[in-house]
């Protein structure tokens, strides 16, 4: 594996265009946690013409619902959740200016089309590496929807948060390329 690329937020479309699939990155700055229920609430707000709790311009979203922090810790275990569950909401959210998404697993064609249109990069964090990933989180602040508990919209201050580019803003897909490369299965 090549040396990781260091990324500092805010994350712009220009930054996004510099990355390609397979790039290993370390993210420093602020990323924003939201998952199923927060996405639903935000898309409902947009449909009603309401303002969102934060301005998503040049921000990175992290699909996450952490465990509660132990006393003295900024956050509990905090690995990625399955991104595909957010696909129904994602094109709408990308129109709000998000340039980076961090999660795990495949995305729909509609999401990839919207990524290409908006110059967005999709990163994978290692699913299930939640105690390890917590080491890179320095601060966790709930910004909206506290009633959702672990699903609240929150800001994470991170230092060298590890991730890998899996779909770049041209629509190239590391999952497809690598699965094909290592697939020896015949007849199924």
């Amino acid at each position: 594996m090549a040396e990781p690329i260091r990324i500092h937020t805010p994350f712009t479309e220009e930054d996004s265009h510099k990355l390609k699939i397979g790039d290993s990155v370390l993210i420093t700055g602020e990323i924003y946690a939201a998952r199923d229920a927060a996405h639903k609430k935000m898309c409902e707000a947009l449909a009603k013409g309401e303002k969102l709790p934060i301005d998503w311009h040049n921000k990175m979203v992290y699909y996450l619902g952490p465990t509660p922090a132990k006393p003295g810790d900024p956050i509990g275990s905090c690995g990625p959740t399955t991104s595909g569950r957010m696909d129904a909401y994602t094109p709408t959210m990308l129109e709000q200016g998000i340039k980076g998404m961090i999660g795990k697993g495949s995305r729909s064609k509609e999401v990839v089309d919207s990524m290409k249109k908006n110059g967005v990069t999709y990163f994978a964090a290692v699913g299930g590496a939640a105690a390890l990933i917590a080491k890179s989180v320095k601060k966790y602040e709930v910004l909206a929807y506290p009633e959702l508990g672990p699903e609240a919209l929150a800001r994470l201050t991170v230092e060298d948060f590890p991730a890998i580019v899996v779909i770049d803003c041209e629509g190239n897909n590391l999952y497809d390329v690598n699965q094909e490369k290592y697939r020896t299965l015949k007849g199924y």
Partner: protein
Amino acid sequence: MRELDAKQITETVAQLCKEAAYYLPKDVYEGLKKGRETEKSPVGQAVLDQIIKNAEIARDEDRPYCQDTGMTIVFLEVGQDLHIVGGDLEEAVNDGIAKGYTEGYLRKSVVAEPIFNRVNTQNNTPGVIYTKIVPGDKLKITVEPKGFGSENKGGIKMLVPADGLEGVKKAVMEIILHASMNPCPPMVVGIGIGGTMDRAAVMSKIALTRSIDSHNPMPEYAKLEDDLLELINETGIGPQLGGTTSCLGVNIEWGPTHIAGLPVAVTICCHACRHAKRVL
């Protein structure tokens, strides 16, 4: 008749919830290390390095291995000569889940109703409890917290007898290929074959409480476990980002079924194949 206080059940369940969340079973940990040695993809190796390191941090610092600490499945094997006193059995178990998830800083991931009002119950109850009456005067408790990234990717196929062995393999591989890299591989696969639709599904969950080093006692099923493991490792799914370590183990449980049927249920578990057991 031997008596067992319900409070002891609550305490034990609470402890097992924490243990399962923090400590990856040794066989799974060793399976990951073995996978790291043989993994061909460089990015797959890097992912496995992170997963192994994560297991060590979780174990050494008593932290949840994964943020999805699951919906709590609890298997109870109750000796018919045991008398539980001082409370209701299911209530004691649910109290234990609430206590364990609260004290252990585990995530509460259960909503009270699935469609119309998805409100979090705030203590991860109720658990999914299966009770079996067995000979003896002991109580065996197995806690299997099940994360839903992988749970969402399981499936069931109601095959017919003519489908036979090849049909079973095809059904399992269809579910696995459809799940692909989404259930946080390297995965552990539990399969229930036979029974009714529901019985097959429960057997697939029981299969996951067995060590990945173990085999079904019947040689034909043991061979099927090995054959399916090999096939899944040929898919290229790998440790999430493509590679050769897609699956750490396949466990099959089977049971008698109807003359017209051949149910096959597949529960996919992520690499956090968590379970903890205690006999009281």
